[in-house]
């Protein structure tokens, strides 16, 4: 029997599916599935793959990477893993340099309502 997960991944890469995914997000009455809730495991996997390849297509479009990642699943996963980790590191370092002074005070002046 064919590997359904491999084929689901292949389907999610297709331009036809990527277009349908983008349109379904924007147009209310276009749906990816007949059921609108109670998604099966394989439908959830398909959605996650559609998101993954949408993300990669955007990266290719802005030339952060080449379309080599579309031909090799390992390259796709590794690039996104690296990107996510880099993003987390940047967020951590942003917060370490930021000094927040959240001190309770009675000096906050709220705008008075007109007519009061």
């Amino acid at each position, binding site marked *: 029997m064919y590997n*359904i997960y491999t084929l689901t991944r292949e389907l999610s890469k297709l331009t036809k599916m990527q277009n349908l995914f983008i349109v379904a997000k924007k147009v209310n009455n276009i749906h990816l599935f007949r059921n609108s809730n109670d998604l099966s*495991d394989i*439908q959830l996997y398909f959605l996650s793959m559609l998101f993954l390849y949408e993300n990669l297509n955007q990266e290719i479009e802005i030339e952060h990477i080449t379309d080599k990642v579309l031909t*090799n699943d*390992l390259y796709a996963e590794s690039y996104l893993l*690296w*990107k996510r980790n880099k993003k987390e590191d940047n967020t951590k370092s942003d917060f370490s340099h930021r000094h927040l002074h959240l001190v309770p005070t009675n000096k906050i002046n709220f705008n008075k309502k007109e007519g009061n």
Partner: protein
Amino acid sequence: MDESKVEAQRIIDDMTKKRDLRKVEEMLKDNKIEFSYKDKEYRVRLLNLREKEELDFLRVKEFGRLLQEKDILLECNLIKQYKENGIDISEIDESISKFQSELKDLCMKLGEAIAKKVEDSILKSYEERINIAEREINVLASQKVILLQYSKENRLLGFVYKCLTYLSLEEKVNDEWKRTFNNMDDLFNCDEELVNQAGQYTAILQNV
């Protein structure tokens, strides 16, 4: 093989792939999977709330029965017994963790290399090292699965998958869908090939 045979094989592979993709596309459209077996139409579907409660009831009942079985051990006791016989499962776990962290490290390096658009030979060398680490993890994980396959927990898991098939398999009778099995005994007495096929589809739809 001459060129025309290679080309013919390529066309056949291409057609098979397209046919399989169409089948999967059809499966993805709904949270039910229809299939035919020996000229009859069947389908598996997600369980409803009442059926999930029935599944829980059957699971608890089976776990109670397994607890009474003296010859089948709980996973923790099986691990202890293996250790007394010189097989240390925790060592397998440690090796798996070691390879997993090596794998993550290599994937991060590969990801960075892709972002820096380095040459293909470097990407290939990372790919090879990743494949080796993955193979090691698979070997160790299979070894662990084989060692623990006769635990009470594994027996229970196998039983739960059978229950899922019993609860979710339906057949078309006069254009109406009806449950194929009335009880678990019906499933155990049924055609094994049908149960296996339905079981595979059920596992694709829902996790236990």
